[in-house]
């Protein structure tokens, strides 16, 4: 269980020489299960994920993970406590192979078969990819799937996916949902998915809507989703980036 208590995050606004509040006094308790975080671009979704993973430190407030205060812990310490963060923009490494990264992610020596298993789960032909370098020769979609394979290999009680569907085509959309279900089955705990996709929101137990650094809505899917459909939440929330191409968005649904 993850709790954010009075979390604020300020950055220097270079233009004005002033402070800008990216996250404004957020209070949020995330129980086990699937939680989708949605909201307009620039609303603070990714910032919130980085705060939880320890990549940035809140200006004020407390983060509790399973009751323990982790606000002062490093990225590594949080990772060891069981927090996994799959980046929106995966990182490239000259020289490190897919197998190297999956091995590091799993935290132990794994066999080729196990490593290949993780790749198959994200729809990559293991034979073809296992020894590939994670460098500029891989496409954005390939990198994204490898990023997800690493998250599967981690098997931690909290996994955060930042727009996992970006760059992933229609074919693998069902698989992606399958992946979430598998992780949840094996590791339990919470899976937080930052997304604009209705299909992902559809599998969420709970939905958080963030805009302007504040939580605008938080509740069960059955309560929040109809509100989003009616456009009650601050627009634009859904289908506002090109990564959703080829997938029906909520806005399309409204038009039907």
């Amino acid at each position: 269980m993850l709790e954010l208590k009075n979390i604020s995050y300020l950055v220097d606004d270079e233009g004005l020489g002033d402070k800008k509040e990216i996250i404004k006094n957020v209070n949020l308790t995330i129980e086990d299960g699937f939680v989708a975080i949605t909201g307009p671009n620039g609303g603070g979704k990714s910032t919130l994920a980085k705060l939880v993973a320890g990549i940035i430190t809140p200006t004020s407030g407390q983060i509790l993970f399973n009751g323990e205060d982790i606000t002062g812990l490093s990225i590594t310490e949080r990772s060891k406590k069981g927090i996994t963060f799959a980046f929106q923009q995966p990182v490239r490494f000259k020289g490190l192979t897919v197998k190297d990264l999956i091995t590091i992610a799993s935290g132990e020596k794994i066999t080729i078969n196990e490593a290949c298993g993780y790749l198959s789960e994200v729809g990559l032909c293991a034979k073809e990819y296992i020894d590939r370098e994670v460098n500029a020769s891989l496409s954005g979609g390939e990198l994204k799937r490898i990023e997800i394979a690493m998250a599967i290999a981690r098997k931690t009680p909290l996994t955060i996916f930042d727009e996992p569907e970006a760059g992933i085509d229609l074919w693998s959309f069902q698989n992606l949902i399958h992946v979430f279900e598998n992780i949840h089955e094996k590791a339990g705990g919470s899976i937080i998915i930052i997304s604009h996709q209705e299909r992902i929101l559809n599998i969420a137990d709970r939905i958080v809507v963030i805009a302007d650094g504040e939580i605008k809505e938080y509740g069960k899917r059955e309560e929040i989703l109809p509100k989003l459909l009616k456009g009650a939440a601050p627009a634009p929330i859904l289908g506002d980036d090109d990564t959703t191409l080829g997938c029906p968005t909520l806005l399309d649904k409204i038009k039907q």
Partner: protein
Amino acid sequence: MAELTAIQKTLLENIADLHEIPAGAYNIRSNGGMLGRNTTANIDIVTKTDKPGIDIIIKPGTKNQSVHIPVLITQTGLKEMVYNEFFIGEDCDVVIVAGCGIHNAGDEESEHSGIHTFHVGKNSKVKYVEKHYGSGEGTGERVMNPSTEIYLEEGSHLEMETIQIEGINSTERKTYARVEDGASIVIKEKIMTHDNQVAVTDFKAELVGADSSADICSRSVAKNHSKQTFKSNIIGSNACKGHSECDAIIMDEAIVEAIPELTAANIDASLIHEAAIGKIAGEQLIKLMTLGLTESEAEEQIINGFLK
């Protein structure tokens, strides 16, 4: 042949991936003398009479054979200059593994300087691997200055892999290649320096033949107060292709210099140079830390991968 000592075995392992005496042709030089030699029907090794060193003569048509010529130095204060010359006949396909390991337990400087000359016959393929390694608890410096001259005849190909990962205080590596019609050379260099080490590499390739090519790629990591200089000069005087690349990770207080030169003396010469020097990308460290590694473990993984 004499039994290898534990230190000699470690050096051999590091410079030639050998655990024991190699199969096939070899010449092991230790502390200025010959520790062992083996020749085969196709590969002859002859001691030079006018200066220290050996001639390695490979008969035309020799395929899938290898020669190992490691140099081991365990005596502090030893300084030597060795001339090794390779005569590779036409239509060969061979692997040559050289390399030098210095274990200096004393306080005097140990130094190995070698000049390797390759005459590669028409349509032959050569893979040349050279590793340098230093160890020893002594205060004596470990110095290596390898020079390599390569003459590639028509249609021949040489791939050179040169690796220096640790323990060499000072090195100046000079490599020269002259490439004839349809011949090609590929050089891959990997260097890591630490503490106050100094490493200078100087590549020069003359592409004199039509359709000749050179591809020089250097990857290096400079740590602590070490200093590296990378110089490359590709001269194209015919229709040819030349590419050189220097990619360096800089850490701590290290200094890395990259001095690329290209000279085109023919309208059909196509020459490219790429150079990049920078620290380890912050996002790479962060990604590995989110996978449970500490910052220094992450650094180590990134460097190992980069120099793999």
